[in-house]
């Protein structure tokens, strides 16, 4: 169906466009500016060309961080998407349970990133945190400050706790839009629970799943606050993701040129991967 045609509507989005220009386009251009020049302060700039880009791409630091990012996103997606679907499938579709479940699901989404970090930081502490203390009492040697594995597990559990709800809510919206007749027909056709999922629910959830997948990929790939608050990138560099590395470079070392180049590379990686996912997933939809 076509949209209503009305030129005046453009005026309504003009403020947003201006805002986006100031908040995104201009800073982005500044970054581009930094990435091709060198400066030692005093507003003196020297042309650096692609030097910073080459420097970043040749550094082990960059590739290590990128690998961590990819592994982290892969783990997050393989857990959150199926888990989200599973929870959505088991949510009630009628009755008073619906609003209860929806509110419960929305709660983690309402908590700011840094607060989530702080909550888990405290929660996991061996001395005063409930989780850390309990684990220690059970004889499990858990310490996210020193142990690489524990640090990763903490970050992954945090992210799952924080963001699976989003996948659940999106999937749930897709599920409730399926007319009852489909379920009745499936019953009559003697379809198993798995067949109902595979041939009715999954196809109908496809569009929302695509959105959930992209959102979760982009968000997890850009993770910053949680490791910043909880692990600070450590132990060692074990949880130093691209975003953390970027901040370290830019603000910690004040290497604006390489930081700007890294930002742009980071930005392009996200854009490229999102585009690849989108194309692959929508193409498989169009095939018939």
């Amino acid at each position, binding site marked *: 169906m*076509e949209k*209503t*045609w*009305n030129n005046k509507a453009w005026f309504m989005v003009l403020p947003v466009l201006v805002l986006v220009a100031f908040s995104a386009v201009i800073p982005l251009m500044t970054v581009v500016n930094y990435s091709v020049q060198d400066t030692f302060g005093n507003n003196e700039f020297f042309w650096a060309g692609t030097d910073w880009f080459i420097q970043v791409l040749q550094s082990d630091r960059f590739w290590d961080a990128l690998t961590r990012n990819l592994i982290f996103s892969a783990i997050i997606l393989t857990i959150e998407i199926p888990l989200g679907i599973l929870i959505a499938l088991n949510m009630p579709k009628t009755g008073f349970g619906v609003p209860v479940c929806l509110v419960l699901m929305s709660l983690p989404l309402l908590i700011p990133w840094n607060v989530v970090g702080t909550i888990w930081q405290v929660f996991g502490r061996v001395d005063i945190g409930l989780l850390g203390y309990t684990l220690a009492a059970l004889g499990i040697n858990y310490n996210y400050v020193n142990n690489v594995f524990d640090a990763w597990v903490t970050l992954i559990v945090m992210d799952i706790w924080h963001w699976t709800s989003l996948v659940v809510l999106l999937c749930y919206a897709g599920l409730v839009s399926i007319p009852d007749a489909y379920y009745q027909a499936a019953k009559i056709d003697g379809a198993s629970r798995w067949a109902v999922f595979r041939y009715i629910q999954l196809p109908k959830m496809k569009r929302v799943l695509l959105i959930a997948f992209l959102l979760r990929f982009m968000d997890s790939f850009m993770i910053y606050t949680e490791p910043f608050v909880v692990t600070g990138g450590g132990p060692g560099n074990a949880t130093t993701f691209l975003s953390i590395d970027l901040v370290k470079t830019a603000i910690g070392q004040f290497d604006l040129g390489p930081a700007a180049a890294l930002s742009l590379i980071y930005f392009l990686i996200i854009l490229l991967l999102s585009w690849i996912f989108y194309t692959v997933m929508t193409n498989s939809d169009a095939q018939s």
Partner: protein
Amino acid sequence: MLELKNITKVVGADTHIHPTDLVLERGSLNVLLGPTLSGKTSLMRLMAGLDKPTTGTITFDGKDVTGVRVQDRSVAMVYQQFINYPAMTVYENIASPMRISGKDAATIDREVRKAAELMKLTPYLERTPLNLSGGQQQRTALARAIVKNASLVLLDEPLANLDYKLREELREELPKLFAASGSIFVYATTEPQEALLLGGNTATLSQGRISQFGPTISVYRKPADIVTAKTFADPPLNTIDLVKSGDAFERDGITVLPVPAHLSGIADGAYTIAFHPHHLSLARPHQTAATLKARIIISEIAGSESFIHVDCAGSRWVMLEHGIHDIEPDTAIELFVDTRHLMAFGADGRAIGGSADSHTVRGA
């Protein structure tokens, strides 16, 4: 007067509306008749100003309104789905267009009660739409369209979601409403019977083209081409491809039908011959009726009449016969064609020789 001049609508690679000219007079009822996706809704959206035509102009009373938004035009629309404000009472629903246009309370009250009376909604004014039956919900939507007093009222299959009998009742009331106001009414439907019951003018649509526009009964009786004849036939039109040779319509050199008087003037050659199911019968209806041999496919009984599907020399036809005739499938029968009502169409699909019969054309 609403005038569409050379209107087209192209969306991407699809042409929704091919070049169309149409003139609708004030106070007229115009039916857009065609199957799903034939362009009825697209055309209505263009008329309303919800979509902008790709080419062409739309004028209203001589004034160009092509670029004018729907909000700035005097248009009311009723859809197949029952669209009302769910939180408002029926009274407030009907009053809403007048509240927007800022009428005074006394006028609003008078108009609402008048429309409610017409639409038999008076006992339900204080209820909310969700506590009403489908028929009452659609009556509310119709009442709202009436009080708006718009110069153009568009009804997009308004009765499609209602029970058969409710449709019958509303269909009888609607033309009365139309006659009372001076608005232009446009009514889209997929059902030929509905167009005939409503009367007025009919434009037959097929694949984004208006094939004919004129008084409903004359479009039905004298279709200009085979597309119109097929669109405007329920039960479906019976057709057979034959060659005229002198005073006979032949196939492979064998006479199938005699040439009736009203077609005697047409040139020899290949034609598509068509006629309505009620001009086919089991008993000889008339001296000049032609006899054919056929095989029964299936008989359907509809109370007072029977729809008998037959295979006649490879053509699949429907016969509409009075009374109950439950003939077993595959029975060989003899049937009669009332040749006075035959229509002939040339290779280009145009009607040839004025498919005239004894009927006088009654206009709207």
